[in-house]
């Protein structure tokens, strides 16, 4: 369905779903007189967060993804998905990438994959 990369060159395989959230860094609350008011963080623009689901990830692909995230200490990495336009090298944004769900799955790829995975990533724009 979609295409997504982390760290410029590491493709997240077989992306099946990619819902997006928009987050305004704002303090929005009702006053004692029940009037809604808002303070927005002026230095920051709207932030996006994606949920990226990948199915039928081979063990080799899975290990490579984990290795990339391990290498940066699970901190921010460049992230690109096709809706950002351009290329991963030129148009990646910085984001935190976490694995929300990690489910073992068996499927037929080039060969029978007995240690495959279905993965769900949570990507939050810095």
């Amino acid at each position, binding site marked *: 369905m979609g295409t997504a990369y982390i760290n410029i060159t590491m493709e997240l395989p077989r992306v099946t779903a990619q819902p997006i959230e928009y987050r305004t860094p704002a303090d929005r609350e009702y006053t*004692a007189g029940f009037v809604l008011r808002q303070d927005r963080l002026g*230095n920051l623009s709207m932030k996006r967060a994606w949920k990226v689901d990948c199915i039928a990830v081979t063990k080799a692909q899975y290990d490579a993804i984990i290795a990339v995230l391990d290498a940066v200490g699970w901190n921010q990495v460049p992230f690109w998905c096709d809706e950002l336009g351009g290329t991963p090298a030129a148009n990646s944004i910085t984001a935190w990438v976490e694995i929300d769900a990690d489910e073992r799955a068996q499927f037929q790829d080039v060969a029978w994959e007995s240690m495959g995975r279905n993965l769900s990533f949570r990507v939050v724009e810095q």
Partner: protein
Amino acid sequence: MSTLIPRDRDIHINLQVGRPDGITWVDLTRYLKSARVSLGDVIDVGTGNQGVDGVVRKMSFTLRNDGPNSFAPKDQTSAWNLVGGNWTPLLWSNREVILQVAITDPGAAPLAGDWVYLFHGVLGESIRCSSDGAEVFCEASDLARRLQRTWIETARTYGTEEGVPVETVMQQILNDNGWSSVVLYCPVSPGFNVTHYIPEFVSVWDALQKMASQIGWYLGYRWDAGTSSFRLTLMEPPRTKDAGSADFMLTEDDDYYKHELDMSDDAIRNAITIYYKDAAGAVQSVTVTDAASIAEYGRLPMGVGVSDTSLINTAEEATDMANAALADLKDQTSTTRINMPLLPEMDLFAGIVVESPRTSSTNDFYGVMSVEHYIQIDDDGRLQARTEVTATGKVIGARAQWLRMQTRPGAKPVTDDPFGTVAPPTPNFVLSAAIRGLTLDIIA
């Protein structure tokens, strides 16, 4: 009096930490997760022997680490900790730190004049790295920390027989201990003269605070709009401020989220006696009372012994001190806590009028005795930018500080005579030397 807080605002933040060269500043705003600035607490003034640390502003803040470039001071490979290729930790003892905010209309960029300092101080009290390496937590104190950490190593005598103004003595103590760069700001002289003062075995800060507390004045770093800086300020708390001269009017529609009210008569004292030594060294006393308070709550006396009045040697000075204590203690305290949108201008001793139909049928006046500003940006991007105010029914200079001075058995004698005011017992025995020992004769 200030008007309402707008219902829709943009808040801009600026967090900077200084390099040791004193001129290079590093912008850490984008890594800020939370910051909390506490502006003193005159109701519970401080810790330690002098009980004055509470007038020092504190800031704690948490930074999200910058990926492999950690803010952890001992990471000698992080770009943040390298200057010219040499390991120079950014977060380290005595590094200056500044937090500013600017509030604008939605979408507007802040102008230079919009920025307000919430804090200017130095790091060092605590720099803590989380075990997962994701965050670094820091605690900083305002510029008073440098005076707190300067020990008076040489005892000097201050004052003369004729008396030297207390603000002059304070500046002399700063100058004599390496802090001539700190110029005491005293807009109005207290008119109090020091005749004899030898600070010893204390910090510069404690020596200064001892003088301030004996005249019931405030000494601490306060923002001065004229010089656009925090200045060491000696001032009389504006105890006469009232609804007519209040600084802020808060309404429930726009200006606060929560408002709680708590009343207590525990701290009332309405007959204050100050014991002091006159020029001849004799113990004298002065008592002031408040008839209205006594009629309302009964007579609740308090004495202050000579150990807390060592700079006082005239009835006039003792009366001034007694009146300051009486003004702060004679009324029942109605303490309110207000949680409101970030209001950077809120400061100690501000007067506020609160319209709160749920807790009072009238618009009530309060004097601010502690302020906490906090900004928090959680991992999901949610923001909290608030000011929390603790205030009491009028502006007070101190409360716990006065109560700590109260004479009581075993801790705060009226005089500094080791036997207090009680004459030592007449010996009823005779001890005399005898061969190979002593002879004790008990007198019947």
